[in-house]
């Protein structure tokens, strides 16, 4: 294994592989900044270019792009309140308020530091788990996925702040929306209103862009002035780095969470950041600042979504089961170069696997350093007039939404969720549960049906399922007690 690790490193550091790595990093940053583009689009474009490259070069290019999108997507999330990719939705919760307070540079300092850290944790977990990949990946079946989805839904409570009822209601609304399209098991189209666009269901990107970005846009238009309400930039990037170091335990926990969720096919970046965010809210004693610019609310999702990538690689290389859509493309790249998942890559082509691991690690660190160097300039965007920023943001989110299916329906969904998001924000209804419901609704329905169909009701007795069920009950109990204690303190104040 050591020899393969050495070979892999030398392969990545040699020219032209290192050049391709930097090219991939640069392209990954560009794609991450433009909402809706994402690493998946970039990798699909790059894939044909890898046909003529050697394996190390191909992996350097693809991993360079893949690894850094969840680092760079922080930029539009913090500066504009627009998720750069699916993995930066939760970053907006506290990152954007920090920018409004003139703390954008501090937010970036913390985010880039934990992104690099999370990426390294993910790569390390991949290395450590090589000998034990099989039981890790195969321990989770349909019943466990179902219960994990239900556990995810209970986090609605943590993300609902002081109004759990509203939070659960909007999560149910989102689950209703998630049922639009074909039922997972049968060829029955549901709620499609005879509009073919809806047959495949509502796409997440236009919905999320509408829900989170449009209300912020409207607020900027109403408020006028610039994005940052504070004329100076506030504390700088090094303060953010210090924040990251101070909260190392949050970063580590969330990184490990990210790796584990990355292992599970179908969950991916769009949910890992919400899980991490909900976890840090749930587990913190002083929660008052969450949603108002608490740096922990940034550290949690940013470390998780980078670590997730190492986790997603595990089932991809071990079994050819892509942990995400981007992994499917990476797998395509491997196959094109005659490197097959399973015994081939784990035994006879271990050097190629290590080239992937090294590329993942190096890309995370290089991207973080590069972006930190540019931070003070990037953060000045917050001082631009709203009248200039608004049309730019509109163009970005309209094109971002368009990338879902390139149909006018994407824009209709965008504006519809924009109106919904605005109304929810106006009335103080929590929006994160909508994202959870949209992602987890189909997940829970599919795996519930599969569990019953394959195992009957005995699936409820499986050990991991029981453990997760206990976690579900515990989460609900804690949430209800917290709400009751809030209600009591509100009554006392009145």
């Amino acid at each position, binding site marked *: 294994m050591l020899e393969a690790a050495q070979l892999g490193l030398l392969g990545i550091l040699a020219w032209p592989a290192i050049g391709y790595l930097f090219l991939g990093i640069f392209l990954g940053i560009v794609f991450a900044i433009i909402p809706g*583009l994402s690493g998946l*689009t970039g990798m699909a*474009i790059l894939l044909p270019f890898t046909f003529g490259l050697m394996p190390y070069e191909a992996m350097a290019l693809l991993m360079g792009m893949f690894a850094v999108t969840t680092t760079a997507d922080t930029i539009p999330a913090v500066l504009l309140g627009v998720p750069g990719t699916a993995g930066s939705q939760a970053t907006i*919760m506290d990152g954007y*308020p920090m920018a409004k307070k003139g703390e954008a540079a501090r937010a970036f300092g913390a985010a880039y530091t934990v992104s690099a850290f999370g990426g390294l944790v993910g790569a390390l977990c991949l290395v450590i788990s090589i000998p034990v990949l099989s039981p890790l990946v195969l321990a989770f079946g349909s019943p466990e996925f179902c219960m994990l989805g239900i556990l995810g839904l209970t986090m609605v409570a943590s*993300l609902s*702040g*002081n*109004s759990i*009822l*509203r939070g659960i*209601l909007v999560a*149910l*609304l989102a*689950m*209703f929306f998630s*049922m639009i399209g074909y039922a997972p*098991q*049968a060829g*029955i189209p*549901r*709620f499609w209103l005879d509009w073919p666009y809806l047959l495949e269901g509502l796409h997440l990107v236009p919905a999320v862009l509408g829900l989170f970005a449009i*209300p*912020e846009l*409207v*607020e900027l*238009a*109403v408020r006028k002035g610039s994005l940052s309400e504070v004329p100076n930039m506030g504390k700088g990037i090094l303060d953010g780095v210090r924040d990251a170091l101070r909260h190392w335990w949050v970063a580590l926990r969330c990184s490990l969470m990210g790796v584990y969720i990355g292992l599970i096919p179908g969950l991916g970046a769009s949910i890992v950041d919400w899980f991490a965010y909900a976890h840090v*809210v749930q587990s913190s004693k*002083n929660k*008052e600042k*969450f*949603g108002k610019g608490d740096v922990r609310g940034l550290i949690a999702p940013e470390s998780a979504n980078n670590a997730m990538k190492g986790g997603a690689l595990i089932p991809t290389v071990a079994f050819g089961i892509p942990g995400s859509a981007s992994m499917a493309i990476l797998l395509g790249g491997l196959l094109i170069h005659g490197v097959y998942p399973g015994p081939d890559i784990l035994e006879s082509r271990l050097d190629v696997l290590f080239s992937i691991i090294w590329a993942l690690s190096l890309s995370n660190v290089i991207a973080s350093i590069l972006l930190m160097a540019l931070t003070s300039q990037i953060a000045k965007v917050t001082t631009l007039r709203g*009248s*200039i920023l*608004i*049309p*730019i943001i*509109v*163009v970005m989110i*309209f*094109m971002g939404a*368009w990338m879902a299916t390139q149909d*006018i329906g994407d*824009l*209709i969904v965008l*504006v519809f969720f*924009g*109106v919904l998001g*605005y109304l929810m*924000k106006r*009335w*103080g209804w*929590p929006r*994160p549960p909508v994202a959870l419901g949209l992602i987890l609704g189909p997940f829970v*329905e599919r795996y519930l*049906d599969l569990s019953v169909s394959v195992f009957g009701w005995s699936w409820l007795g499986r050990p991991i399922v029981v453990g997760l069920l206990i976690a579900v009950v515990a989460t609900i109990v804690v949430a209800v007690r*917290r709400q009751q204690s*809030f209600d009591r*303190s509100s009554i006392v104040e009145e």
Partner: protein
Amino acid sequence: MRSRENLIEASFALVLALLFIYSIVAARQWPFNAALFPTIIGVAGFGLAIGVSLVVWWGRGNNSVKGSGIQGDLYLEETLLGGQALRRTITTFAWLVGLVLGIWLLGQKLALPLFMLFYLKAAGEKWWLSILLTLGTVAFLIGVFDQVIYVSWQDGVLFSWLGIDPI
């Protein structure tokens, strides 16, 4: 005391309740495995929507905007409420809806640059800046989305009505 905001919010919750009823009714025509989830969500959602509507209507939702620290979402400043804010909000949404219509009629390559130009001018920006940013928009759309990603553009229906090739 019930405010107009409470009334509107409660009505919104009632609209959601109707949506959940629709879910339950629609599910009746489907086989069991396709109907189960919509029925469960519909029943739970309907009950909760009615509950929230009543809670808001009877005034306990007054603190929904302020809340206390656990709120995991962003705050709309209270100072933004009021007539001027409402007008600006409606105007902004009108721009967005207008842009969707513009894209449908003209396609993105024309509609987005025009939007950029008109918005900037309506906001009082100088001509040189407006034109510069508009040209930047065109470069961005063509350079990134057309030449690199080869995105499929919306062919404006106006062109097909007029029988000419879209841009």
